[in-house]
């Protein structure tokens, strides 16, 4: 099995499976089952990726390289480091749960929905696995198409507005990156990301490239102030779409920063790290307050996602500042490691939170907080899970939410105590909006007679929420396997930061 092109299998199995599912056409049950089988098979294939990855050695493994376009030296080149392995496993894991979760809640044009989900999964894996910049860009952009369709067909009342905004906004960001990539190709004569990292670039070039990358990835993460597409997209998307969007798609932005911004433009990144750090802190505090006043549950979680993703960008650029300005690679490693753990952890938590809201929505067809109250009386098991995920969302020790944020705040302290203090605000605001949400939805009197009639979790929902809960607790209590997986890769990224291109 060691010789199998594992990454290609992981990318193309879901996409080819999607064609098969589409061909099944009119039989929804067959479409659901075959999609589940494909997603499970993909997940199974991602396990040897984890177990076979030689974490202590680090670097890119499972490499595949075939010439794609000779004239431009474009390669179909794949390879993963520890960070990418973790993200790919997150993708395959979440995709299975999304498909189980949408089993009953999607009942129109099922095969198209399931096929779109599978295509999306394949493309997300492709983004994390590509080591050729053009291949990365192709996956990066192509995944917009299935998401556009998912929000547009199965979304809520304002879905057309939301999905057009989502598509055009993200397209706007990434196309500037395309110009940057073409420019780098002109400099180096090839499209390999490693060659881009080696390219000698002056400060002026680096600055332009840095901002071209920044627009692309900041919109994807999304960072304040280019986050406005996310609440709209989340609110209108069907549950499965929201889960994929929050759990995986946002991570592509963070992944882009470490794959492109840091290695290709290290000096410009250092110069403008304060911009990113400031934007991240604004997101932590300001977006936290915005989340507080939401009366739509999905919107609240969407804003909370923005605030939590700010820790990812904060951790990455704090690490840069620590290496470059304080000559403190140990703390830098901590910050970078924290950012990566936060990516994985947020994937689980946001996926779980959106799944929870999906469970409620399937019963009540409302996302408004005021329509609920006292859900614990009708759905005790659901309430248990919801409270657990809420605790994880506010970073309670023992859950995965704690680990990443704590590491980032620790690292930030080494750079500047004020930054750390501002970032630590999340512990207050995050607790405020999450716990207040729990209070209003789960606890209290049953004011709406409809709530009393709600049935508790069915076995399918049990599987979804139970799996998320296991993941959240596992990473929270024993994060070693995850940190070990990424340790050397993080170390290598941090070491590479030491080298100036000037």
């Amino acid at each position, binding site marked *: 099995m060691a010789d199998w092109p594992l990454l290609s299998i992981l990318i193309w199995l879901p996409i080819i499976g999607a064609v098969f599912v589409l061909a099944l056409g009119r039989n929804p049950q067959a479409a659901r089952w075959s999609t589940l089988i494909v997603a499970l098979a993909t997940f199974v294939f991602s396990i040897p990726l984890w177990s076979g990855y030689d974490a202590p050695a680090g670097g890119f493994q499972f490499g595949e390289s075939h010439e794609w376009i000779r004239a431009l030296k474009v390669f179909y080149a794949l390879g993963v480091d520890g960070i990418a392995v973790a993200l790919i496993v997150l993708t395959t894991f979440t995709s299975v749960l999304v498909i189980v979760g949408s089993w009953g809640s999607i009942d129109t044009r099922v095969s198209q929905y399931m096929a779109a989900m599978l295509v999306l999964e394949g493309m997300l894996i492709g983004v994390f696995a590509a080591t050729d910049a053009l291949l990365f860009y*192709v996956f990066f952009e192509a995944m*917009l198409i299935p998401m556009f369709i998912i929000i547009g067909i199965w979304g809520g009342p304002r879905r057309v507005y939301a999905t057009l905004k989502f598509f*055009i906004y993200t397209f706007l960001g990434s196309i500037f990156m395309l110009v940057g990539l073409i420019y780098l190709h002109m400099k180096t004569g090839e499209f390999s990301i490693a060659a881009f990292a080696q390219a000698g670039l002056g400060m002026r070039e680096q600055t332009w490239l840095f901002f071209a990358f920044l627009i692309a990835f900041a919109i994807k993460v999304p960072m304040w102030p280019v986050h406005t597409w996310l609440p709209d997209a989340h609110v209108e998307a069907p549950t499965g779409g929201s889960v994929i969007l929050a759990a995986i798609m946002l991570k592509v932005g963070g992944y882009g920063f470490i794959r492109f911004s840091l290695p290709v433009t290290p000096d410009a990144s250092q110069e403008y790290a304060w911009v990113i750090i400031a934007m991240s802190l604004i997101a932590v505090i300001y977006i936290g307050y915005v989340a507080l006043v939401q009366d739509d549950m999905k919107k609240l979680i969407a804003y909370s996602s923005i605030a939590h993703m700010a820790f990812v960008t904060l951790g990455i650029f704090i690490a840069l500042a620590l290496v470059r300005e304080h000559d403190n690679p140990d703390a830098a490693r901590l910050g970078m490691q924290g950012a990566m753990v936060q990516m994985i952890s947020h994937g689980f938590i946001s996926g779980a939170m959106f799944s929870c809201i999906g469970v409620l929505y399937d019963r009540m067809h409302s996302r408004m907080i005021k329509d609920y109250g006292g859900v614990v009386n009708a759905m005790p098991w659901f309430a248990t899970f919801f409270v657990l995920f809420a605790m994880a969302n506010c970073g309670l020790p023992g859950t995965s939410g704690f680990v990443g944020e704590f590491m980032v705040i620790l690292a930030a302290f080494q750079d500047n105590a004020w930054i750390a203090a501002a970032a630590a605000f999340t512990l207050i605001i995050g607790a405020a909006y999450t716990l207040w949400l729990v209070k209003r939805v789960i606890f209290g009197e049953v004011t709406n007679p409809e709530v009393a009639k709600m049935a508790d979790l069915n076995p399918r929902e049990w599987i979804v929420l139970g799996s998320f809960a296991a993941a959240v607790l596992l990473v929270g209590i024993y994060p070693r396997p995850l940190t070990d997986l990424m340790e050397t890769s993080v170390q290598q990224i941090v070491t590479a930061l030491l080298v100036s291109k000037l």
Partner: protein
Amino acid sequence: MTEFNTQDLITILPEFVFLGAIIAILLIDLFLKPAQRDITHWLSLAALALTAAFVCHGAPQGGPISAFGGMFVNDGVAVLLKLFVLLTSALSFVYGRHYMRERRLLLGEYYLLILFATLGMLLLVSAGSLITAYLGLELLALSSYALVALNRDSPTSAEAAIKYFVLGALASGLLLYGMSMLYGATGTLDLAQIRAATATVQYPNLLAVGVVFVVVGVAFKLGAAPFHMWLPDVYQGAPTSITTFIGAAPKLAAFALAYRLLDNGLGGMSQHWTLMLAVLAVLSLAVGNLFAIAQSNLKRMLAYSTISHVGFLLLGFVGANAAGYAAAMFYAVAYSITAVVAFGMIALLARAGFEAEEIDDFKGLNQRNPWYAGIMAIVMFSLAGVPPLFGFFAKLLVLKAAIDAGYLWLAVVAIVFAIIGLFYYLRVVKVMYFDGADAAQPTLVLPADLPLRWAISINGLALIVLGFTWGPLLDWCNRALGL
């Protein structure tokens, strides 16, 4: 003048074969009843295929071959463009037959005019002198004017044809005037000799003024803004099957016209025309994309989209180097293959009394026929330039050509307008996928014309396949330009 020799005839053999076939079809068609028009159809396709075989067979192994004292050139560019001209013309026959039959327009003239237009394109593509270029261009243009007017009972068709004719004649006049100046300045009609003479010409200003007129003429024929006025009216007014033809193959010919005149003839004057083309590109991108947003008629929207694509194509010219021309040629091929299926889809959904040319006519298509909705979505995403579809890679190449040529600002302008353009393509997808069908909409009846349905499906899926395997086409374009 050189002596007449048989080598010249062998070089131009594909055109002779094609001309012979056209005359044979003309004669055969005279004896056919309207019900037997399918014979003309298949004979026309056979003529195109036969010509393609001769083009392949006559492909020059080494460098370019010229015949008739340099009037006619057969080189890599000519072979590539001829093959795609023949292919897209054949596709427009396949897509148009059902449409024309339902409207009782499936006349012999439809086939013959398109065949003559195609012959004109073949000549134009191989032009080695101003005369050949002009002859080919006029044969194409005159046939096209008549084609647009083919539905003579329709006032919009007649209006479109007159506009096309008047503006087309004006463009030809400007081009001819420019050519006369080139002749006056250099004393020759041969493109290669003009190029050789540019450095030593006695009146460089006369030559420069000639260049301006030639650029204007070429811009008219390409449909670049601000010389695009004819294009939306013609695309909308012509019967859809005719638009399918006019919208695809002649773009390849227009590329050839630009390449032959501006590079082969006026390559030495490139410092004069590159900036002009850059300005034309910006204007085309702006006009095409902004006006397309306001359209509710799909054919008119696609017409404005054509203008914006011409803007992209011109990005390949601003560097005035072979790599740029290769990118522009790739773009022209990609565009014509995509445009032909876009108009073909309109022809597919149309039937007697229902044109299916409003964007709203596509409402809810995904519910009624997911397969063709999928094909149309592929076409729209490809035109918008979203990877992994073919259209994206064409855009990538011309953007790269512009950036390599030092026109970074132009590339940025182009992508800004590409984002704006994204909106109207997405709107078509939105209408098909997110909107429900209206009760008032006529039920969807697809024609039983199997070649039509198969060809559209294959052509649409090819946009995905070519998105993965565009390397050979790029290599071919590069080889054709000697890279």
